[in-house]
Each structure stands twice: as C-alpha cells, then as structure tokens.
C-alpha cells in the first residue's frame, strides 16, 4: 500500500467507526473534550502507523489505537476525585423495582442509574462491557482491542456483569437484613 493509499484507508476506517471510537472514549474518559481529543490523537497515530496493520479485523485495530490513546490520557490526567470503591457502589444499590407503568422520569432515573454504576466499575470491566454490549464486538475482537487472551475477555465480562447485577439489584428491606 502506498502512503497516500494507506492514509486514505485509515480515514475511511476512522470515519466509519467514529461513533464507536468516541463512545469508547466517553466511557473511558468521561467528558466530551477529552474523548474527542483522544480520538483525534488516535486518528493521527493510526495514519502514521497504518503500515503496522497486519490484516485481520480493521475495526479492532482502530479501536485498539483509540483505547491506547484514552489510557495514555487517563495516565497523564491528575485525578481530582479518587475512584469510588466498588464495594461502596454495591452497597449504595439502586431501587429498580419493575413497575408495569413507568413515568418517563423513572425511565430517565434508571438510565442515569445504570450509567452511574457502569462508570463506577473498574476500567478493565467497564471497557469490556462497553465493547460487548454497546459496540457489539465479538470475544475475538474484544481480545484484539484489549490485547489479552479470549479467556481473559470472558472472565472480565463475567466479573463486570456480576458486579453490575449486584449493583442494580433492588435492596432488601432493612428488617430482613437484621433478621437473618
């Protein structure tokens, strides 16, 4: 591939999977500006290193570069707020008792709750879940993006889901907890 052709190829690839890249960036970095900057960095880096693409899944190759840029941004960022411990999130719980009729406010509240719980997950579980459930990547693709074996992908997904399930479960009434 000539240099011009490969950079045209990277542009097409980046444009096609721009939402996926940005979504991953938002979930890893939290805000619009940082996510957009990281995706832009990734685009520049991908253009420069198009020759390193060795065939295989192009979307996974692109998202792996995006992820690396996000992690680099995370590392340099001075964290003003310490990440919340998972146990605390689990304890906080959210009441998601399913009613047949829900007001739009309740729906919105649930959406905010799931977003909060997802953001509270340790990053290795969060990124695996985002790639699987929101970007619909296969185990193989996720393994390529995260650069880990498929078995690790499966255990991270499993652990992430278990934490999320626990966090989203309705809290048992106080009385029951002491009664046991």
């Amino acid at each position, binding site marked *: 591939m000539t240099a011009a052709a490969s950079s045209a190829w990277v542009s097409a690839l980046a444009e096609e999977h721009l939402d996926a890249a*940005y979504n991953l960036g938002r979930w890893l970095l939290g805000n619009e500006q940082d996510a957009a900057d990281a995706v832009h960095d990734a685009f520049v880096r991908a253009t420069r290193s198009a020759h390193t693409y060795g065939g295989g899944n192009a979307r996974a190759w692109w998202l792996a570069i995006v992820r690396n840029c996000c992690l680099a941004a995370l590392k340099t960022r001075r964290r003003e707020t310490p990440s919340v411990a998972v146990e605390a999130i689990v304890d906080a719980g959210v009441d998601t008792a399913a009613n047949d009729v829900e007001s739009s406010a309740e729906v919105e509240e649930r959406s905010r709750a799931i977003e909060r719980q997802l953001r509270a997950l340790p990053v290795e579980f969060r990124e695996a879940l985002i790639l699987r459930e929101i970007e619909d990547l296969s185990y193989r693709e996720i393994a390529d993006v995260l650069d880990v074996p498929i078995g690790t992908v499966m255990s991270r997904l499993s652990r992430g889901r278990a934490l999320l399930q626990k966090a989203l479960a309705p809290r048992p009434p106080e009385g029951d907890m002491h009664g046991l």
Partner: protein
Amino acid sequence: MDCKEAARLLEPYLDGELDRDSVRALEAHVDDCAECQAALANLGRVRHAMRAEAPRYAAPASLRDRIRREAPAPAYAPRTHRMPAWSRLAAACFGAFVAGAAVMHYAAGPGSADARDQVSRDLFASHWRALAAASPVDVVSSDRHTVRPWFAGKVAESPRVTDFADQGFPLVGGRVDYVGAARVPVLVYRHDKHLIDVYVLPADAPAGTMLRRDGYTLIWSTLDGERAAIVSDLDAGELARFESVLAAK
C-alpha cells in the same frame, strides 16, 4: 450437562459465541432447570439494562469535521466493507438504537427493537457458525425432493423447497437451527462461492430493515407467505435479485 457446566456456558450463549452442539445441549438443560433459568433471566436483565438504558455517545460533528478536514482525498480502500451510503445507514442504526431504547420500556413483545435485536443476532451467529462448520448443511440436496421430507419431524412445519438453479442460485441443502428458542428450517443456496441462508421464521418473528454486520447482510423477506430472513455476504445487487426471485415464487 450439569448446572456447573451450564453456568459456565450461559454467558457465551447469550453472547452468541457457542457452537451449535453446545447451544443444543445447554438449551436442553435450561429447559428442565429452574435454577439455570433464573440465572439466565438475571443475565438477561443486566444485558437489557446496558443495551436499552446505557447511553451510546455519538461523535460530535466538530470531531467528525476535524478528522474529515485532515483526511486526504480518498484514493483506494482495501478490504473495509465500505458502503457508499454508510453514513446514512450508521445514522439510521443509531436512530433505531435510540428509538429502540425509548420503546423498550413499554414493549418487550416480539415486535420490539429488543426482540428484533436478539433475532438478528441469532441469525448472523447461525450463519457464521454454519460457515465455520465442516458443512453448512445437515442434509445435502440432490434435488428438492430430498430436502423437504428431511425437515419433517424436525421442525413444526416443513417449508416448501424450491431450487433456483435456473436463476443462478442452486439449492445446496438444508439444516435446522435455533432462533431464540424456536427451531427453524434453514434453506441454503449458493451463488458462485457465496452461501445464502434463508431462514423460515415463526409468524410472530420481528421484522425490520436491512442490517449489515462485518460484510454480511441480513434482509427480511417472505417465502410462500411465511416470514423469512436472508443472510449472506453477496453484494447488494445480487442479494436484491435473489430476494426478488424468492419473493416471486
């Protein structure tokens, strides 16, 4: 299969990553096991929460512009499945995602976006499994009279089987696969080196617009008045021709 083994397979099952034999063995176990049914339902709730309620952020226009400005004029694009109308399609998919998320709180019935999502996922997964398997068919067609009787007793209703060899789409054979919990007949056709799966779906199966995933296309159609879905890696023009041949029958 015991519960320990089943528990290990539940997530790959939901993720469409199990091979066909394991899917059958797992479904047989779950059918009879209340505990594993509950575990599956719990996993389903987490998945629903993520897919329906967690936001997917779309790239802001400013970022898209920034990247477009820096992009060279398109010259040559090797092996990406680029469609001329990809951006429109991507916008439509995102629209469907948002609309789906809005609708799903009120309707999780067969017509809902969630149900359609599950079905299309099953259809793609089935097609890919078949391509990866030693043979994409369980019964080989010598002529159409061998395929239809084979389905009898394996699915609720054997589909009418027609060979379209004259139109360039010879019948390869058939198999049975799962879509959700339903066993459905699959008719397999060939065009050059491309395989075309035609799934005959239950009457209450969801339908939708065309979907593309990793270079494969799913379109919704009808076969003898039955709901059907076609999955293949044929190019759009040939696939449209096949669909019209199928629907005209």
